């Protein structure tokens, strides 16, 4: 029903576009047009689609809650809690849809009939109102087309609002996500002291689990210490950067300064394709190939190596980030003006002297920016760690042991069944928001550094 209605509105809008344009050509024969004929078409189409679609959207948002209020009115005298009311409403809906399998009471049956009835009324009312709106707005718009009013300005204003609504939507969704993170995290911090979370050195949320009851507050104190996770996150990111920065930077310099056009033409796209390999592929590469390899080498040297080591995860993560750094630093170095290179060569500098003394310093802010962006990617990386570095949150600085990161723990917490409102589940939100703050901080610094670099040559 809804689909038909929306399709109808959109088809009508297209039709009115052609109709408006044709009408403009008719007007043209007797008087001067105020805009190009297509603006007449846009004007009609906008007036046709916009009011009807807005009413449709509002209706769809508010209809369910209004219907719900009507249904639950019959239950107000029973003194039920909010959760019980919600349960009843779900049952009524299921009964109306014919998917209910429990005991059917008379009262419930009555409600279901009422629900079907209300839905029917609402649907007819919706169609009637939208048709009325279509007729009203189209006739209004057609009148002003006939009067040959100014057409350009209303169309431009309409487009401006369409763009505004789109960007407003994007911003609101982001803000919504941040706030939901924040509220859940605040609820978590009501159960666990923020001090214990930030400075505690034991992360073992599983031990707070108690069947049907509140966990012991003493246990809570020692179960949610995030220090091992932060340490693990930065440790693995550090290993990754030790791999990625030298290789990425040197290959970036090679690509931009030394490689001939033929090499560059093929090497650059290939490197960018590497950046598109799904992280889960890197993950099983780390878990199945690199991890055992590191263990074997370590054992041959007489070292105790865990099969899931921070070293394996970090090294593979570094490989994943190489294309990121090399591609970005290649762009930054290429952007250094050619006349600086000419100036250096003309002084008798060799290629490596020019790179070291002129090009690299000039590109440094951009390179630092790209490295910071890469760090924030390493910090946020999940799959490789989950698969290759284990899930036990050890507080260790030994790259041969297994360790865990914030992202990997969020996965552990939210896999399988969870109880909402359980501190264990809520701790995922606390971890999420701390991760968000760290990467936000890194990104802001990186972007401001890159921006300052851009201004330098203008």
């Amino acid at each position, binding site marked *: 029903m809804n689909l038909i209605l929306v399709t109808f509105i959109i088809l009508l809008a297209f039709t009115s576009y052609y109709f408006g344009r044709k009408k403009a050509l008719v007007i043209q024969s007797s008087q001067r047009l105020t805009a190009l004929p297509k603006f007449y078409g846009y004007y009609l189409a906008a007036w046709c689609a916009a009011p009807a679609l807005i009413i449709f959207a509002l209706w769809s948002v508010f209809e369910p809650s209004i219907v719900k209020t009507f249904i639950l009115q019959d239950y107000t005298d029973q003194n039920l809690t909010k959760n019980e009311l919600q349960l009843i409403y779900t049952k009524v809906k299921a009964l109306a849809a014919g998917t209910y399998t429990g005991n059917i009471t008379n009262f419930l049956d009555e409600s279901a009939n009422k629900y079907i009835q209300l839905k029917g009324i609402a649907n007819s009312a919706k169609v009637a109102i939208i048709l009325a709106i279509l007729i009203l707005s189209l006739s209004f718009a057609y009148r002003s087309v006939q009067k040959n009013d100014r057409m350009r300005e209303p169309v431009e204003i309409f487009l401006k609002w369409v763009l505004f609504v789109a960007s407003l939507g994007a911003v609101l969704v982001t803000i919504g996500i941040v706030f939901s993170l924040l509220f859940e995290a605040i609820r978590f911090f009501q159960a666990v002291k923020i001090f214990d979370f930030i400075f505690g050195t034991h992360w073992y949320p599983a031990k707070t689990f108690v069947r049907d009851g509140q966990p012991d507050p003493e246990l809570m104190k020692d179960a949610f210490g995030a220090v091992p996770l932060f340490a693990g996150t930065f440790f693995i990111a550090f290993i990754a950067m030790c791999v990625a920065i030298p290789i990425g930077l040197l290959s970036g310099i090679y690509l931009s300064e030394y490689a*001939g*056009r033929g090499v560059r033409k093929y090497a650059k796209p290939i490197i960018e394709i590497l950046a598109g390999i799904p992280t889960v592929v890197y993950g099983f590469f780390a878990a199945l190939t690199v991890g055992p390899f590191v263990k074997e080498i370590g054992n041959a040297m007489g070292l105790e190596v865990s099969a899931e080591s921070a070293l394996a995860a970090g090294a593979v993560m570094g490989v994943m980030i190489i294309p990121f750094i090399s591609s970005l630093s290649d762009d930054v170095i290429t952007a250094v*003006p050619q*006349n*600086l*290179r*000419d*100036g*250096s*060569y*003309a*002084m*008798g*500098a*060799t290629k490596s*002297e020019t790179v070291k*003394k*002129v090009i690299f*310093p*000039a590109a440094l802010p951009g390179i630092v920016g790209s490295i910071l962006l890469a760090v924030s990617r390493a910090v946020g990386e999940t799959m490789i760690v989950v698969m290759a570095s284990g899930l036990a949150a050890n507080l260790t600085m030994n790259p041969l042991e297994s360790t865990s990161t914030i992202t990997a723990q969020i996965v552990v917490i939210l896999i399988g069944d969870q109880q909402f409102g359980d501190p264990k589940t809520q701790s995922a939100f606390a971890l999420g928001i701390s991760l968000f703050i760290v990467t936000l901080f890194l990104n802001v610094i990186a972007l401001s550094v890159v921006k300052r670099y851009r201004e*330098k040559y203008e």
Partner: protein
Amino acid sequence: MSKIKAENVNVYYGSKQALFDVSIDIAEKEVTALIGPSGCGKSTFLRCLNRMNDVIEICRVEGSIKMDNLELNSRKLDVVRLRENVGMVFQKPNPFPKTIYENVAYGPTIHGIAQSKEEMDQIVETSLKKAALWNEVKDRLDEIGTGLSGGQQQRLCIARAISVSPEVILMDEPCSALDPIATAQIEELIDDLKKEVTIVIVTHSMSQAARVSQKTGFFHLGKLIEFGPTDKIFKNPDNQQTQDYITGRFG
């Protein structure tokens, strides 16, 4: 006395020929101006003299260019030594994004000319003095070179070029991005410099060529049409095309 002697120089960019059989004698401690319409090959020729065309992958140079009997267009030539001897100033001022001091000290550092900090200070000071910039920047040598005005930047580039005491300086339209006052300062500088170095200058301004140079060469469509004393080229050229260009009938 001849400093640079070019014979039958042909230059190609890929399959396109940019210079045709150019032969020219550039005299020592004089200013030689190269004039001609845009795209006539004068800058290409200038860049042959310090092998800057090496930077362009598709560029190929044929023929003989000798400087003091040293063949420049040879694979065996040490390009680093050559460029130490032949400095260059570009159309757009291109100081490095470093301090004024570091800009001038760049050449002496990479060629290992100064033995001590005092010696380097001395080189920087003399170079800046010769480039007539010392008085304006002596109190702010540690400021970034790109913060200077356009004319000051160009004089900084000249100071950078003369810091390694080259025998020849090539100038590729050094005043085209400058205002008349800065241009006059640079021209005055060229006049002073020619006591010690040989200067080859490419310019679009015929009055500038007439003011600063002793010899002038006129290029057109990749060929050297006429070469001779500046007075003669401007007052009584042999070639009709030269005459037309100088009187502004084309180009």
